[in-house]
């Protein structure tokens, strides 16, 4: 997963389109903006438009249908022109709605800013007051306020503003609380700025987007609610009319003249709908989480779109348990393509442990997750190569077949056991579920087996632990549970994606020992993904080192450790910390891996390589065999050529 996160965050920094353009790109928001602009323009221009007097009654012309002569939208029960009343009414509704929003935003933001900035008792007092207001059902409080102040448009406006204050206060307080603990606020405080100045110059600019979002999402409500109060006869009083009171009056003659109520009703709907469309558009533009497209959900299986020219099954399987040939997996984010895995060949024999080693973003996890289609789509997809498990073509297998293999023949152990176990189900439930997904076992049988599995991974009191939730266990214990889950169905292949990275060193050693023992007992193969050569030396028979989506060196662990051929492998091995320095920092290798959306023409490691020559940058370097089971993607392999030293 870390690899995916990296590529995503890297691409995000690319372009930041302008807000308005983004808003207009959103077709619905643009349509809303047009409708809203038209309605506001008409309402503003009401005195200039050639409209009839909205209050001029004409008993002779009462209840004319729409499209009557001289009355485009007909007349109401008193013979007043509905079109004219509509425009003037919209003017009132808009004015009241906008005023209420401004008042609520001002008061609410002020409370939120002060509470969040002051903290302590002030915060407590203000927020308890806000909670009190929120303890009332939304509209009921407005009614109570109108009951106190008496019916009337202005009182309805106050009531609606008051009941919306909490939304602003809470949102703004939350942001302010976070901001007021940040360094730049501390710096301003130390520089002797007054509280008022800090609030207005340091904090306010940062909370402004939140205020705007909250305004744009609540203004529709406020117009709706003021219309509602007027509809009930508690807002605008005759002869003054807003859209709500027009609807309320029309209701009395609903059966003989429905148009009198339908027209203002549609107007309210259009007004609120257009505001909501624009509001959603504004929120999407200002909310960075949505902008990066982070809120897409991965589907059940990675999309497979093989390029025809490559000929997916042209590479034959080598008769191993698991064979990966020419695997390509990429991420499409916007217009950029990140080639996370650029043609990887792997094979895994029975009861063998293969380590895939590399930095974050090297494509090691994506390679491993591609095997069972667990790379998130969108944005990921497999575009080339072949994966065969016991002579079965996994890329051609049906979704149902893949589901059967997942957790069955091929099981997984992931990095952070707190995040990878479901927080709301007990440990026993989650293990039992893994069993019943593949074996015809009853619930009690599955629980019995789950208990055995916990004992197998050396958890004490397994029967009691079954009822524990993941958060009630320690990190090492949780990872043992994950391993127990992976062992539930006697898998042939165990894919372990950094299973020890989130654990502290002693627990790490225990978990490694456990996996090693289980592998021998259960005769399972392990694909072990890690960035740590220390871990590799403890468990792996063979190693494949990955860099920028390609394997740069592969061979037996002992040989590679003794004499790395690729300069990158050498650097990785040097990163294994000395005893007493538990901090493993891989960026001890100078520079960063190249972005996989923009790989250099030649060797991808050349820019960071201490011994790089001009030829290295000129053309792609192939993986060249260096003896039995050994290969390196380097023109000047370290120990196998003369005259080149790694110490440069």
């Amino acid at each position: 997963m870390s690899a995916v996160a990296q590529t995503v965050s890297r691409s995000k920094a690319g372009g930041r389109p302008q807000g308005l353009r983004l808003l207009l790109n959103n077709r619905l928001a643009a349509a809303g903006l047009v409708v809203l602009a038209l309605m506001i323009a008409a309402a503003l221009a009401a005195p200039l438009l050639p409209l009839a007097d909205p209050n001029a009654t004409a008993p002779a012309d009462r209840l004319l249908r729409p499209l009557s002569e001289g009355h485009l939208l007909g007349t109401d029960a008193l013979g007043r022109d509905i079109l004219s009343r509509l425009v003037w009414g919209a003017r009132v509704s808009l004015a009241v709605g906008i005023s209420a929003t401004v008042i609520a935003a001002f008061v609410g933001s002020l409370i939120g800013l002060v509470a969040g900035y002051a903290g302590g008792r002030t915060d407590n007092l203000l927020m308890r007051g806000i909670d009190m207001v929120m303890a009332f059902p939304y509209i009921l409080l407005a009614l109570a306020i109108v009951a106190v102040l008496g019916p009337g448009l202005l009182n309805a406006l106050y009531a609606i503003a008051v009941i919306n204050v909490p939304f602003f206060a809470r949102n703004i307080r939350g942001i302010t609380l976070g901001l007021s603990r940040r360094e730049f606020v501390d710096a301003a405080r130390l520089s002797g700025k007054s509280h008022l100045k800090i609030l207005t110059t340091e904090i306010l600019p940062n909370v402004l987007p939140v205020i705007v979002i909250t305004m744009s999402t609540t203004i529709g409500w406020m117009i709706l609610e003021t219309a509602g109060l007027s509809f009930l006869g508690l807002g605008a009083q005759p002869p003054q009319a807003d859209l709500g009171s027009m609807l309320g009056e029309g209701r009395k003659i609903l059966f003989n003249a429905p148009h009198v109520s339908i027209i203002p009703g549609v107007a309210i709907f259009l007004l609120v709908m257009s505001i909501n469309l624009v509001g959603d558009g504004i929120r999407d533009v200002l909310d960075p989480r949505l902008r990066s497209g982070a809120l897409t959900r991965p589907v059940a299986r990675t999309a497979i779109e093989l390029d025809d020219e490559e000929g997916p099954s042209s590479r034959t399987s080598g008769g191993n348990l698991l064979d990966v040939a020419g695997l390509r997996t990429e991420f499409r984010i916007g217009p950029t393509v990140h080639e996370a895995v650029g043609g990887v060949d792997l094979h895994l024999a029975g009861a063998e442990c293969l380590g895939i080693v590399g930095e974050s973003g090297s494509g090691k996890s994506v390679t491993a997750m591609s095997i069972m289609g667990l790379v998130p789509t969108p944005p990921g997809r497999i575009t080339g190569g072949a994966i065969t498990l016991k002579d079965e073509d996994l890329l051609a297998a049906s979704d149902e077949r893949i589901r059967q293999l997942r957790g069955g023949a091929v099981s997984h152990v992931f990095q952070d056991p707190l995040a990878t176990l479901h927080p709301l189900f007990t440990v026993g439930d989650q293990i039992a579920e893994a069993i019943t997904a593949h074996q015809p076992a009853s619930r009690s049988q599955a629980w019995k087996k789950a208990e055995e599995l916990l004992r197998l991974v050396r958890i004490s009191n397994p029967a009691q632990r079954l009822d524990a939730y993941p958060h009630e266990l320690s990190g090492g214990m949780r990872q043992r549970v994950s391993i127990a889950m992976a062992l539930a169905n006697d898998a042939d292949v165990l894919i372990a994606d950094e299973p020890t990275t989130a654990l502290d060193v002693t627990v790490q050693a225990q978990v490694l020992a456990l996996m090693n023992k289980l592998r021998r007992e259960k005769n399972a193969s392990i694909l072990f993904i890690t960035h740590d050569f220390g871990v590799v030396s403890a468990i792996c028979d063979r190693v494949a080192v990955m860099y920028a989506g390609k394997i740069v060196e592969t061979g037996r662990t002992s040989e590679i450790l003794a004499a790395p051929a690729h300069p990158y492998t050498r650097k990785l091995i040097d990163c294994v910390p000395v005893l007493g320095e538990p901090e493993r920092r891989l960026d001890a290798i100078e520079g960063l891996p190249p972005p996989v959306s923009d790989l250099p023409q030649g060797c991808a490691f050349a820019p960071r390589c201490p011994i790089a020559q001009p030829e290295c940058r000129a053309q792609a370097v192939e993986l060249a065999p260096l003896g039995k089971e050994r290969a390196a993607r380097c023109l000047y392999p370290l120990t196998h050529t003369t005259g080149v030293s790694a110490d440069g």
Partner: protein
Amino acid sequence: MAAYTLRRLLAAIPVLFGLTLLVFLMMALIPGDPATAILGSYATPDNVARLNAALGLDKPLPQQYLIWLGNLFQGDLGRSYALNRPVLDEVLERFSATLILAGTSLVICSVLGLLAGIVSAVRQFGWTDRIVTFIVLVGISTPSFFLGLLLILLFAVKLRLFPASGMYAVYGGGDLADLLHHLVLPALTLSVVAAGVVARLTRTSMLEVLRQDYIRTARAKGLTELRVIYRHAFKSALVAVIPVIGIQAGFVLGGAVYIETVFQWPGIGAMLVNAISTRDILLVQGGVLVVAASYVLFNLAADLFQSILDPRLRR
């Protein structure tokens, strides 16, 4: 769990007291003199003073509150002068009708909203998602009082499928079937906006949850996609949605004001609107108090249900 429940129940007590204080203050701050309102503007100052003394309005405010609170505990919310009957009797009778309407709407909005949200999230960016998203947007933009009128025109006037008003038929009604028949239109109208809000949040929560590592684990275990979505993802999403359903209880209880007026449902909302117009302050006070208190209890129930689902919240 028992300890947590007890703690939550105890925490609700100060909120309920706060409510009584707020309701009391609101009504005490009403400009004008209740005695004058009751006796009319032709009353002699002498009579006004006597009535004020009888109502206890000549005492200082804190004392008035304590007396009012004491009466409240004895089930005495005063007397509605417009209806000439005890406020509590009227309020409870009306509130039961509102509870039927609001409760039904809450169930409808939860079921519709959750389903629409799940489907929308699972089919993200597909046509189903787009259509559901658009319907939701239309739903939350439509004034419920207008939607009620439209439904009356269509189903009561044109199609004659459902009655336009009341809770029971005037003649020969009164059984459950009759109640349900009358309930369909108002309950549906009342639940539309709330369902939209629930659907939106469910969609967002589902999208959020489906990206979590533990969903990948569930898939890696070989669970069927149905199980991944409706058991693993939905449970987490539900934890996030429940408080919002609790808030929707407030929306349907408050929104009942419109719907009861439109469909002439004999509930507390319609009662409140009338009481405000007739300045029947004690009735408004009693009605607001009972609805607000029930909202606190709805939210309490939502909290407890949430903690049943999420063990991490029980501490």
